[in-house]
């Protein structure tokens, strides 16, 4: 069987399916299939978001279920491996999943998501932040519950410009992952839109570089210390880079993506200050929305620990928006659920509004809390939504 799937936006995607395992629907219950990492490298990233998703499922079940049915969970371990990811996807589909939840990272989640797409099911990336996690990289039935990495870079640039009067920016990119590049792409998009803001220099490094001394030398040799450094990186290299930047006496404000969210790593850079992170919700107990703090308490009750970073939250959002769409469609049938999801415009959730369109199953604009780390203590200091969404064209060309 061959079917070419045409999708909007000129960006079309073909999937040549020679055999698609038939999924069977059970009328008595609704099945959520988790094809996520229960072991290996990705486990530390998938598990917290999955726990949050389970909390939301539990809430729905306690409140009488979805369409009057209880939600059941089936899970398969991707072992943090791409080929295993495809198997895990096929496995939860075999077990009757109505929605396939896949790994937090696009690369690791895509094989399972593609399996779901092939079976005609809705797939949700639990917290991936690449535009590919959705229509562009999987197909018309795929979504992501988080916000695009580019929005983080754009948010930080615009916020620092507006609220902190930053004019001279320096861009330091860790070329290790696409996520890192995504942050800098957003930053690159936003910067020219800010009058008289300029890029005074840029450099790259690699996450596992033992030392970034050469990169620091380049910053130090600028005639004047930049107002802000846009640091597009993630763990574990982020800590090393931040530590070395500060140790070198570079005191510019450091702007980041959400990859450095959370306080678990702050002990490595004592007395870190002038450091800013965009968060969808605060894990530090000071979220302006008391319901977030309630959720944090519940999370601790269920898992025994505080949320480690903001990447817990998209899991909750995911089940939340999907369940709403199912309620509205009155069925779990894929086309109907996708149609309902695509009707969502600024749909409020605990962690910021969500919009899905037939072009983009991701957020190209989003409300972010700005967390400032000062004297080694993180604190929410502001809230920011970029003035304009980042165009899908721009994102897709990156």
């Amino acid at each position, binding site marked *: 069987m061959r079917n070419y799937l045409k999708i909007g936006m000129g960006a079309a995607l073909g999937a040549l399916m020679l055999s698609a395992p038939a999924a069977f629907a059970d009328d008595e219950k609704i099945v959520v299939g988790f094809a996520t990492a229960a072991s290996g490298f990705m*486990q530390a990233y998938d598990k917290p978001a999955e726990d949050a998703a389970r909390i939301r499922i539990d809430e729905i079940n306690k409140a009488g279920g979805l369409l009057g049915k209880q939600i059941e969970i089936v899970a398969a371990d991707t072992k943090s491996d791409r080929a295993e990811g495809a198997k895990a996807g096929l496995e939860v589909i075999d077990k009757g999943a109505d929605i396939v939840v896949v790994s937090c990272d696009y690369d690791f989640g895509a094989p399972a998501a593609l399996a779901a797409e092939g079976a005609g099911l809705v797939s949700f990336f639990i917290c991936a932040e690449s535009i590919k996690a959705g229509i562009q990289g999987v197909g018309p039935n795929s979504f992501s519950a988080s916000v695009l990495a580019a929005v983080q870079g754009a948010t930080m640039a615009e916020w620092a410009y507006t609220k902190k009067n930053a004019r001279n920016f320096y861009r330091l990119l860790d070329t290790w992952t696409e996520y890192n590049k995504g942050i800098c792409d957003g930053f690159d998009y936003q910067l020219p839109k800010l009058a008289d803001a300029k890029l005074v220099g840029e450099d*790259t490094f*690699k996450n596992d570089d033992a030392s970034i001394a050469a990169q620091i030398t380049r910053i130090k040799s600028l005639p004047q210390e930049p107002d802000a450094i846009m640091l597009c990186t993630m763990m574990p290299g982020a800590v090393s880079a931040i530590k070395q930047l500060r140790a070198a006496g570079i005191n510019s404000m450091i702007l980041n993506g959400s990859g450095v969210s959370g306080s678990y790593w702050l002990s490595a850079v004592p007395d870190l200050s002038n450091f800013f992170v965009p968060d969808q919700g605060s894990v530090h107990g000071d979220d302006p929305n008391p319901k977030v703090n309630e959720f944090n308490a519940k999370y601790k009750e269920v898992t025994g620990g505080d949320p480690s970073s903001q990447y817990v939250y998209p899991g909750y959002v995911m089940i939340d928006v999907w369940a709403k769409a199912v309620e509205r469609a009155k069925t779990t049938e894929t086309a109907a659920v996708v149609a309902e999801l695509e009707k969502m415009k600024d749909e409020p959730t605990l962690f910021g509004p969500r919009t899905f369109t037939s072009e983009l199953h991701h957020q190209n604009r989003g409300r972010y809390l700005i967390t400032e780390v000062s004297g080694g203590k993180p604190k929410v200091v502001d809230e920011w939504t970029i003035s304009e969404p980042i165009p899908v064209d721009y994102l897709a060309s990156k």
Partner: protein
Amino acid sequence: MTAILQILFDALSLGSLYALGALGIALIFGVMRLVNFAHGDYIAFCVFAMLWPSIDAAAIVFAGNLPTYLLIPLILCVGAGLSVLSEILVFRRFRNANPATMMIASFALGFVIKYLLLMLYSSRPKSIDLWSNLSQQIEIFGARIPPLQVITICTTIVILLALTAFLKRTRYGLEMRAAAENFTMARMLGVRANLVIMLAFALSGMLAAAVGLILVTQTGTVDINMGANIMLVAFVATVIGGLGSLPGAVIAGFLIGGLSSLMQAYLPADARPFRDAFVYGAVIVMLIWRPNGLFSSKAAKQRV
């Protein structure tokens, strides 16, 4: 002038890390012709030994809280212990196996150590603040140099001198050099093979621990893959230096570190992401130019 001094320092500090790693690999290779791919995992293991096993995001610092004069010997002992243990449990049984078999066995051992750490600590990198005042920079002739860099370079030099003195001046050093050159003959002269090999493993493990300590002080991060990159570069350096030649390994380590720093400093921005491709390209050229390494001559194979 200042810029050159700065680049020189950056290159030296990166190079000394590679040199220490290469030394650990060359030592074992010299004595038993084993390319130990588990070396990088020894580095990670030593650093994790400072933390209490837990899969929480925040690190629970345990041994890391000990005073410096206890912590350093402890971590060195952990490295030596792990290395000796792997000799006794695994490598001893591969004394006569071919190099490929030994290599794969060492890789499998590294795999086991890595996944053990993953199970105990989870894959999420942990943070630990160790001697962070060493990272505060001081200026020398306009170049900014963190004491840690100075310490790293000095440590490397001290370790090199100490190792050279050990190999040159002591009985065990003499036996180790002899064993490295001709294992069977050394045994026929009464050199206790197992003891010498264990000693070499212990030293190699301590070198891994030293690399781990420097890395964690510099980066503040504990990660299961933290030794992998250094191990790879060290492995390449060992071969370029001339397998089995300790000074060769050290010099090649400095060479690669220097080359990498120079490229970072002088490549145009667009080419900078390809830095490692250029470095490895240079490695290929060097190997074709001198397949036996920079410091290996046929007549007298010099080892320190």
